[in-house]
């Protein structure tokens, strides 16, 4: 428990963690509510206002809050995962921490625990910000404020948490594998923001085996899960597989990333 408290203190005091949360909220609100509402209110209906006003109301809170996780919110939590684990390489503090006696696996477990807390906080914050924005829009437009049921909200938060933690664990694994911060962030972002889109947009329509292989990749499964929960009109959100399969695949990736990261950390020398 002491190691978890130590990791929690490091994260809470770290300005970069709060910056990432702020960026996540700003992006989520801007692309889910601000731009669509500006477009709607200005009367220049575009792609984002296909759903019109109903797409911005509280009834769509779950889908709207999850829509960013397959790509841009996913990228931000991946960066967080890299920072939490890779910071020890960047500052050469693994030796400082391990010299105090905790085992590598204990420290790594504490990092994963803290990442789980941070991912939950991020998802809850996105939901809360979305709830506030949609409530404001409903009030401004005198539209009905029909909130999702508690069950739907819980399901949505759980799905968002799973996806966020999966990306964060990937960030941690990349940091351990590459023993640094900058390169894991760069490679992770290239995968999330470029390779996934190229596979989905260019390779999959041309090659059937790529289309099939996509169904086993983390991004498309995250997109499928959030699509099943109501997300729409967002890059990376497409229902390629069922929600059940997507959940199982994502849990598999989460566990796989976590175990692989721990195994590499345990085996390697701390230089």
């Amino acid at each position, binding site marked *: 428990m*002491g*190691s978890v*408290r*130590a990791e929690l*203190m*490091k994260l809470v*005091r*770290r*300005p970069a963690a709060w910056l990432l949360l702020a960026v996540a909220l700003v992006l989520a609100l801007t692309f889910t509510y601000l731009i669509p509402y500006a477009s709607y209110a200005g009367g220049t209906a575009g792609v984002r206002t296909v759903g019109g006003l109903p797409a911005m109301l509280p009834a769509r809170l779950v889908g709207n809050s999850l829509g960013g996780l397959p790509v841009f919110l996913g990228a931000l939590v991946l960066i967080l995962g890299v920072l939490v684990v890779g*910071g020890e390489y960047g*500052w*050469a*503090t*693994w*030796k*400082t*921490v*391990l*010299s*105090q*006696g*905790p085992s590598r696996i204990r*420290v790594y477990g504490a990092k994963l625990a803290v990442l789980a807390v941070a991912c939950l906080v991020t998802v809850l914050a996105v939901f809360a910000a979305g709830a506030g924005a949609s409530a404001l829009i409903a009030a401004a437009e005198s539209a009905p404020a029909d909130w999702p049921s508690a069950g739907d909200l819980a399901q949505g938060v759980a799905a968002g948490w799973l996806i966020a933690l999966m990306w964060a664990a990937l960030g941690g694994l990349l940091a351990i594998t590459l023993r640094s911060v900058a390169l894991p962030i760069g490679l992770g972002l290239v995968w999330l923001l470029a390779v996934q889109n190229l596979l989905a947009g260019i390779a999959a329509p041309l090659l059937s085996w790529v289309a099939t292989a996509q169904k086993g990749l983390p991004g498309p499964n995250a997109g499928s899960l959030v699509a099943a929960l109501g997300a729409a009109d967002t890059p990376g959100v497409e229902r390629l597989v069922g929600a059940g399969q997507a959940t199982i695949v994502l849990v598999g990736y989460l566990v796989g990333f976590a175990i692989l990261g721990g195994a590499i950390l345990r085996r390697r*020398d*701390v*230089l």
Partner: protein
Amino acid sequence: MRNPVVTHGLTKRYGEVVAVDGLDLTVRSGEVYGFLGPNGAGKTTTLRMLLGLVRPTAGRVEVAVPRVGALIEGPAFYPYLSGWDNLRVLARYAGVGEARITPVLEMVDLAGAARRRYAGYSLGMKQRLGVAAALLKDPELLILDEPTNGLDPAGMADMRTLIRRLGAAGRTVLLSSHLLGEVQQVCDRVGVIAGGRLIAESTVAELRGGAGLRVVAEPLDRAAARARALLGADRVRVRGDALDLAAGPAEAAKINAELVGAGVAVRELRPAERELEQIFLELTQREGDHRG
């Protein structure tokens, strides 16, 4: 009482490079042990193996005390936290109460700057915070790897005083250094490492004086002849107005009797204390020749 640190045939290879080669090291309880060697000799790799940061390729490490504190290859902390908060984080990992933080900061004379951010510390303050972190668990064994690196002369003197104080308090201290003067001033015993091998291990006094006798006598040529007859020509060297004999203190009485019996007036017969630097260079040169 068990020795706090014992290694048996400790070896570390990185591909073709042998960083540490069959090291047998013993650090006794309560002593300040100097681990002396040039840069790249394998000191830090050895210390990392003692702490479990690096896995040996062969051999084994026995660390017989439960509480070990260490400062390895320079201080490393979280730059966005204050010195105090860095120690809070480490205290949580170590499982010690925060009440321990103030005493260790006072021991290294850093209490006044504890609330400042680590990023703004001078190198000397960073080193002292590193020592404070190593002391958090009130360790029975303290491992300090080149703790005076980068410090100005005043900072080095302060650090040596601190190390002597810590050693005097009954702790076992394992101090690695490439600075001979530092080891000479601070340590009880010294292990000399070169090319990953332990090439000498003894007290500083033994290392400096145990290997020879200095004789001032008249007439010198007759003294040299008698000494050569007694010890062999290769163990006798004429240096100025004296003889350097490759003989230990145990042979001093016999040599004195022989010279006096031959009518030589022996004015001085004493252990020849060589400078540690000279010994160090001889040892490492010998090791280099041996390897070459």
